[in-house]
């Protein structure tokens, strides 16, 4: 079972590459009621302790594969399942310190059965309170 909060407690950690901490990652579940195709997703913004990360600083890992935010738009046949949290990896040399951190994620998706103008509005609606204080071990 998943955490009720959209940002999951499991999966929050620093990311080590070639012996260096290159950033951190966390998992979050969709706040929509259905799975979406990756091409429906709009780029995410991650705010951690007041610092904002976007565009190429953030990648998505879904179904074991990692996508740049620009790439998402191309993958109309890859499905982000509702019960599979996406892993967002954020480039931040040195990563985060041990202890508590305030995380927030903003993202959006297109919704074809709503009026087209809503696609832009969905950014505001879906960005909602996807925020949580997590503990880095």
């Amino acid at each position, binding site marked *: *079972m*998943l*955490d*009720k909060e959209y940002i999951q407690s499991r999966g929050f950690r620093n990311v080590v590459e070639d012996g260096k901490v290159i950033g951190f990652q966390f998992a979050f*579940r969709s706040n929509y*009621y*259905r*799975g*979406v*195709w990756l*091409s*429906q997703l*709009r780029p995410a913004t991650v705010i951690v302790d007041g610092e904002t990360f976007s565009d190429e600083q953030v990648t998505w890992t879904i179904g074991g594969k990692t996508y740049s935010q620009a790439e998402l*738009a191309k993958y*109309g046949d890859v*499905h982000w*399942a*509702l*019960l599979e949290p996406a892993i967002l990896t954020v480039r931040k040399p040195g990563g985060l310190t041990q202890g508590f951190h305030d995380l927030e994620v903003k993202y959006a998706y*297109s*919704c*074809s*059965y*709503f*009026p*087209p*103008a809503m*696609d832009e509005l969905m950014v505001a609606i879906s960005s909602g309170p996807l925020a949580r204080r997590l503990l880095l071990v």
Partner: protein
Amino acid sequence: MSNSNPNIAKPKRGVSLYSYSGEYGVTMTMEDMFADMHDMGAEGLEILANTHIDGYPEPTDAWVDNWFRLLDKYKIRPVEYGHWVDSRQYQGRELTTKESYDKLLRDIKIANRLGFTVMRTKLGVIDDDLTPVTNWREFIAMALPDAEKYNVRMCPEIHSPTVLKSKMVDDYVEFIEKQKTKHFGINIDFGVFQTNPMPMWEGQDLSTMKFSPVEDMVPLLPYTYACHAKFVNMSDDFVETTTPYDRIIELMIKHGWDGYLLSEYEGRNKDVPGYSSGQLRRQHILMKRLLGEE
């Protein structure tokens, strides 16, 4: 548990798993939802393909085996397969007719594999009146032979703010008549009959909104293969406070409509464990009484 007299044609009770969307995966598993529906004597269900099928659009054989195990164990019929033709799936352009058809065909095959005979075919829209994409006739017509082959009926949902007497519904009926098809129809969402404000939208002003008189559904019943029994607020004395369920079900019985009423809870507290189930139970008491069950 079942209708008291199977010889009288009247609606049957079912549940859309959408009702549990605030709990699915967090406080309820798929089997929990089946057990809950069985408990209230529901006989059929709607699933949402993109929500409830693990591995969609390519469920494993193991998932499908478990699906049939659950249907059998809890005596639930697969009634309606909810799916989408996401016309704005790609930013900056609409899906082509061929792309839309390909998506339809894929879902038709999955629906058939899982035992469904009705599909809630959600189309993309182009304006604030929810007018469907301009090429819907083309890709639906392309898929009709497949729908026949796989024994499914594709049904767009007539959903508020659309009303039953509208160009959209007229266009669907005209298409059905012209194609002489039994494989395309409609799903009427009971939200179109709303008469009282929704409690979660304080001060909802219904005078600025359009709704349908209940009797407007009568000429559409021959094209209606399932309904969303939308509800938002069941009182403790088993009244749905926004929608005239008594008149809706009375008219359905009078006209011998015997499809499924698929409960769709869209009210408050969906993420409070047990709340949606409690609302569903109240609504099923209401429907049992109106249907003359037991």
